C-alpha cells in the first residue's frame, strides 16, 4: 500500500540544502508560470485539492523521483485536465486549436485574482459524525495505512505513523475527508485532531527521549487504546 510521495522517515536522501532568505521566490521564470497555470486552471472548479494532490501522487515512481517540484505540478495538471474531461488528448496534439471551450465563462480574470486567493477554500464543514475522542485521550492509528474506500486511493495517514500510539492534543473541528473527497465520493466530513506521538513510537533510534511528532489525523484513522 505504498506510494512514492509518502517519504517521511526514509533514509538516504542526503543533506538538506538551505537557500538564502532573500532568494527569488521562483528560481526560474517557468516555475512561476507553472504555479500560476495550475492555480488558474483550478479556478475552473472541475476538481478539488484532494483530487489534485492525488493526481500528483499517481505519477509513476520513476517520474515522481526524476521530476523537479514544478514538473510534478505541471505533469499532474496535464493528467488532471484529461482525467476530468476538460481537455482531450486530441487537444494536446492540436495544441488547443479549435472552438472556445464551454467552460470559458468560468475563466479567472486578472482583476479577480487577489479576491480569489484571499477567499481561499476552507476545509471545515458541519458533520453528523459524533466526536469520539477528547483532549489527552490515548489513541492508536490504524495498523495498516491505506484508503479504506478505494484500493490504492488517496489517504493522509503516512506509513511511518501507522499503528503508532499517541494522544489527542487538540480537536480542529470537522473537516472534509480526503480519502473520500479525492475520489468523487463526497466530502464525508468528520472530526480532525492533532495527535502527538513520542518519537520512540515511530523510530527505532530517536534523537532525544523527549522528542515528539504531531500529525493531523481524521477520526476514522484512529482507534481508542
Amino acid at each position: 500500500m505504498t506510494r512514492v510521495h509518502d517519504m517521511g522517515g526514509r533514509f538516504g536522501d542526503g543533506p538538506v540544502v538551505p537557500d538564502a532568505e532573500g532568494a527569488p521566490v521562483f528560481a526560474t521564470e517557468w516555475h512561476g508560470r507553472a504555479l500560476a497555470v495550475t492555480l488558474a486552471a483550478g479556478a475552473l472548479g472541475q476538481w478539488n485539492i484532494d483530487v489534485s494532490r492525488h493526481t500528483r501522487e499517481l505519477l509513476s515512481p520513476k517520474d515522481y523521483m526524476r521530476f523537479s517540484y514544478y514538473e510534478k505540478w505541471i505533469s499532474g495538471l496535464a493528467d488532471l485536465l484529461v482525467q476530468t474531461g476538460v481537455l482531450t488528448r486530441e487537444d494536446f496534439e492540436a495544441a488547443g486549436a479549435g472552438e472556445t471551450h464551454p467552460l470559458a465563462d468560468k475563466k479567472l480574470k486578472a482583476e479577480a485574482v487577489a479576491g480569489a486567493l484571499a477567499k481561499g477554500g476552507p476545509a471545515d464543514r458541519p458533520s453528523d459524525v459524533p466526536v469520539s475522542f477528547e483532549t489527552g485521550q490515548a489513541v492508536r492509528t490504524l495498523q495498516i495505512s491505506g484508503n479504506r474506500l478505494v484500493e490504492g486511493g488517496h489517504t493522509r495517514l503516512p506509513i511511518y505513523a501507522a499503528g503508532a500510539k499517541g494522544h489527542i492534543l487538540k480537536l480542529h473541528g470537522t473537516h472534509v475527508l480526503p480519502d473520500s473527497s479525492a475520489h468523487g465520493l463526497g466530502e464525508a466530513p468528520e472530526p480532525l485532531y492533532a495527535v502527538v506521538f513520542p518519537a520512540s513510537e515511530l523510530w527505532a533510534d530517536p534523537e532525544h527521549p523527549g522528542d515528539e511528532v504531531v500529525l493531523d489525523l481524521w477520526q476514522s484513522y484512529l482507534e481508542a487504546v
Partner: protein
Amino acid sequence: MPHDHSDHPHALLPPDPALRVKALETILTRKGLIDPATLDEIIDIYQNKIGPQNGARVVAKAWSDPAFKARLLADATAVVADLGYFGRQGEHMVVVENTPEQHNMVVCTLCSCYPWPLLGIPPGWYKSDAYRARAVREPRKVLADFGVTLSDESSVRVWDSTAEVRYLILPMRPAGTEGLSEEELAELVTRDSMIGTGLPKVPS
C-alpha cells in the same frame, strides 16, 4: 479511481519542463480557459505582495503585546485574518510557541503544505525529498544542516502538516531587544525561524 497506467497524458507534452508549461499555457489560452494576464497577476502577488514579511509582522506583534500573543496562540485563524492574512493555504491556522524546553518545526512529509498567506510560496528546500524524509526522524541533524544547534535540555516537536491546518512557529524573542519597536523586531524575524529551521536574528 486511481489509474495506474503508463500512458499519462503529460507524456503528450514536450519533455523540457519550460516548454511543457508553455505548451499547456498555450492550449488553455487558445481554448479560452485561462488568461495570460491572470497568470502575471498571480505571479506578481506571490513574488511581491504575499511573503514572510507578513508572518514577521505577526511574530513581532506577539513579542510586543502579551494580550495579542495569548489570542494568537488560542485562535490564530481569526487573529491573523484581522490583520488581513487569510486565504489560500492559510484557511486554518495554528501558531505554536518555542520555549527553552521545547523547539517546534514544521514539515509536510506527503507533499508541501505551507502557510501561504503568512510565509508565501515555500522555498525549494522545504519541498525537497531530503527535508520531507528527514525532518520527522532526525530533526537535530536537519537543524545542523541549517547551522542551528539546540541545547541538550530542549526537546523537539515536529508538526507534520497532513491536513488543511497550517502551522506557524512563534520563535523566542532574542535577548537584547528590549525597547525595540514592532517594526524593528519584525526585521529580526526570518522565514526559517517561523518554520522552525532557523532562529531569529540578534540585534547588531
